[in-house]
């Protein structure tokens, strides 16, 4: 499977199309910043940012699966590449972002003022 010699050109251009469309949507949303999305919060982040992050992961999936051709590798290779990254990144983000929010709260409620 990993070394099939048939041409994948059609799929490559299709994926390029998907990535371009998604990027265009991101840029348009970033420029317009629709009120309804930008002002509505979900899990302490606004919906617009959630959309950006989901679209980014969607793009990352296509780059890794189609361009880096992880879809053609054995399941064991796929897992040994994807699982550590996903696990460690989620762990790191959880710790750092929760901690950062805590530090923010401490500064906000304490007598230390940033804006003199």
């Amino acid at each position, binding site marked *: 499977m990993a070394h099939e010699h048939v041409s994948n050109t059609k799929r490559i251009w299709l994926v390029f199309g998907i990535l371009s469309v998604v990027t*265009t949507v991101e840029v348009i949303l970033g420029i317009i910043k629709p009120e309804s999305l930008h002002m509505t919060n979900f899990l302490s982040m606004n919906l617009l940012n959630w959309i950006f992050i989901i679209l980014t992961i969607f793009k990352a999936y296509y780059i890794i699966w189609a361009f880096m051709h992880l879809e053609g590798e054995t399941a064991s290779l796929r897992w040994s590449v994807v699982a*550590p990254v996903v696990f*460690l990144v989620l762990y790191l983000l959880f710790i750092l972002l929760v901690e950062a929010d805590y530090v923010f709260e401490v500064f906000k409620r304490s007598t230390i003022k940033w804006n003199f």
Partner: protein
Amino acid sequence: MEATAHTAHTQQKTWGGGNEPLGANYGKLMMWFFIVSDALTFSGFLAAYGFSRFKFIETWPLPDEVFTHFPFLHGVAAPMYYVALMTFILIFSSVTMVLAVDAGHQMNKKKVTFYMFLTIIGGLIFVGSQAWEWKNFIKGEYGAVETKGGSLLQFVDDTGKRVALADFAVDLPEERAELTRSRSTWFQSGSSLPSYSLAEVQAGFKAHPNIRVRTEVLYKDDAAAKADKSIDHSLTKHKHKTILTREASEQFLANGAIVVEGANLVRNEYGSKLFADFFFFITGFHGFHVFSGVIINFIIFLNVLLGTYEKRRNYEMVEKVGLYWHFVDLVWVFVFTFFYLV
């Protein structure tokens, strides 16, 4: 499925060497594991950026106010267009790379050469674009004043539009000497002087009654903020930077300490000091990856031209550098989101 089939086939000599349990050879596997470790490095940087951003969530600069330049459109605010263009260039060079790999599978030397060439060109354009982006970032556009407490004051007119220091600062007859080696001992030198002194900015502020100070604080449309008399509520919008009244502006500016123009690793005119540090570090580290990717691609390109892989009867080297090149694109997708969109 196929993994089981593979092991069943090689069961007899599992430890005898010569089999590939992951269905990939040594070089490709090591490239994958290098990519995993590099991905974790970049995740560390971006998570640190997230940490600082959440820590200063109320005062962080708004990216669409910082990155507004586009080549040949001087003075036109074009947020995001340029990075969007850079993103397309990098995605497209990723496409030509994967086409080169595909052509390599078919042992088509001519096509591999052509697509590798396009990939290298795309990479060079991207690095060039990043240099241009850095130039604008370092040069700055409006200028700002840093207060004694370390917070940043920017300037707007009475419609809330940004005003550059050059538009209102006056020229005072004063001597300002840059601290250079020739004026002091050899080991001393100061940073280059900004175009205006603090006194000139303050005098210009007094002479122009329409100028207001904009602070770093993101305005939150709640009761506490509405009761604040120092905020100009007609100009300030929810989730935008706070604009002060004329009186409050004067008080804030009296506390000024340094005129800041552009960005360096110590301070920048956009807001939080960490913002510029992270910008330089993360985009710089990514740019370094692109640059080394271009060099590696070029070496492989030369080998393709020389017919090395034609003699080897396989183009797997192209596939390996391809993995690295796609990874660089992958990182950019995340940098793009977290630096420019979110």
